[in-house]
């Protein structure tokens, strides 16, 4: 479980996120949602330690991550897998080398073990026979899958996904969402997904945290989201025509 307490972050004079607290539960797909520019990605970066928050603390299963020393942070990070918005695959490495990279650096597995693990992960995300391809030779959806395979290759306890559906067609988006959900259930990990896609929210959101103008306005499940009583959340949720029809019903 990940717990965040009073996280705030400003860039120069602009307060991007203010006093956000919440918990992300193990074995569940936790979503951080909100419109563009509300600070979702900044919050995610504060949680994984890419940005140091001005105030507040992040706990990974009770371990204070924000104030930990560099060694402790590195230790926690080795339990983290992250899928970035653009995939963030290493351009100079093939698909196989990308997925194998965390194993090469962080483990002492034998070459055969590493190869088996990489093939297992690639197969798990539905990719086969692409090992030797370079990132520039595969589609956006495949890059996301390779990103997921790289994120899970080292058996993480925590999986973070930053806008996993951005730039993908609706069908591929659903496949990626389902994959994230399946992996969360299968490996029993704490997954945190940043998204503004209502299809993802209704598809995989087990616990949802809604941000508006840098503040947390609501927290709940996808079943509760349509009748939250929060005007800003309603405006966000019912922008989608499908959701509008759901509201009318």
């Amino acid at each position, binding site marked *: 479980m990940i717990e965040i307490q009073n996280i705030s972050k400003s860039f120069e004079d602009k307060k991007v996120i203010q006093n956000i607290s919440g918990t992300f539960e193990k074995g569940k797909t936790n979503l951080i949602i909100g419109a563009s520019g509300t600070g979702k990605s900044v919050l995610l*970066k504060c949680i994984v330690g890419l940005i140091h928050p001005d105030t507040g603390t992040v706990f990974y299963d009770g371990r204070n991550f924000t104030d930990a020393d*560099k*060694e402790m942070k590195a230790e926690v*990070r*080795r339990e*983290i897998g992250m899928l970035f918005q653009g995939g*963030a695959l290493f*351009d100079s490495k093939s698909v196989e080398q990308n997925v194998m990279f*965390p194993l090469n650096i962080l483990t002492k597995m034998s070459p055969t073990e590493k190869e088996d693990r990489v093939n297992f992960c690639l197969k798990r995300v539905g990719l086969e026979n692409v090992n030797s391809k370079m990132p520039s030779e595969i589609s956006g959806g495949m890059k996301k899958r390779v990103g997921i395979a790289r994120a899970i290759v080292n058996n993480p306890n925590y999986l973070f996904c930053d806008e996993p559906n951005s730039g993908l067609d609706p069908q591929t988006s659903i496949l990626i969402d389902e994959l994230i959900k399946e992996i969360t259930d299968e490996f029993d990990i704490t997954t945190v997904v940043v998204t503004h896609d209502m299809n993802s929210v209704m598809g995989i959101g087990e616990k949802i945290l809604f941000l508006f103008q840098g503040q947390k306005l609501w927290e709940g499940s996808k079943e509760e989201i349509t009748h939250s009583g929060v005007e800003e959340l309603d405006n966000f949720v019912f922008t989608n025509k499908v959701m509008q029809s759901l509201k009318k019903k």
Partner: protein
Amino acid sequence: MKGFGRYMLFLGTLLVRRESLGTYYKLILEECIVVGVKSIFLFALVSTFIGAVTTVQTAYNLVSPLVPNYIISNVVREMTILELAPTIMALIYAGKVGSSMSGNLGTMRITEQIDALEVMGINSTSYLVLPKIIASIMMYPMLVILSGACALAGGYLVGTLTGIISPTDYVYGLRYVFNEYTVTFALIKSLVFGFLISSISCFKGYYTKGGAFEVGVASTEAVTTSVMAVLIGDYLLAQLLL
């Protein structure tokens, strides 16, 4: 001053939380090929022509019955060893290797590849930058030696083929009152310049913010700042060591 402070902190992070030696061995070898082996042709070409032109221009300026011909190659030797090979080549090195390092790291930054390394618990500066700096410190002196040899050979070819100087005079001039310390001085300079160019270029690239345009700006800044650092370093080393 703020930038200089950040640069010093950046250098400090290179040596903390390093990966295994085996990892660096492979990375350094790869970087040596990129910064060294792939620069050989350009360095040889430029140096040969610089040596040839220096010979022609020195001969043009030394037309006097009182000055023996071997002084031409003597001047070419001194200029090559002291300045052309280590310093002028450093400017070319900054343009080729420095901009490439900066562009490479800048692109990795804006496409979140550096963030990906950090999230994995890897010290990205140590992993990405340290091998580049070590490779540069190792390879640049070798390129300078190659450059010096090519420049002197270029001078010999042009000087003898055009009849400016006889082969015997050229070789005599090269060996005349030779002070070995100039070679040591040139190698010290090349070590310092190799470090300055690679570290400054990596620093500029590593802290790129924005998009493709900013990567270009960072590469330009990397070359400009490296060149300034080389020129200032050149002056300081000359004052200190000569």
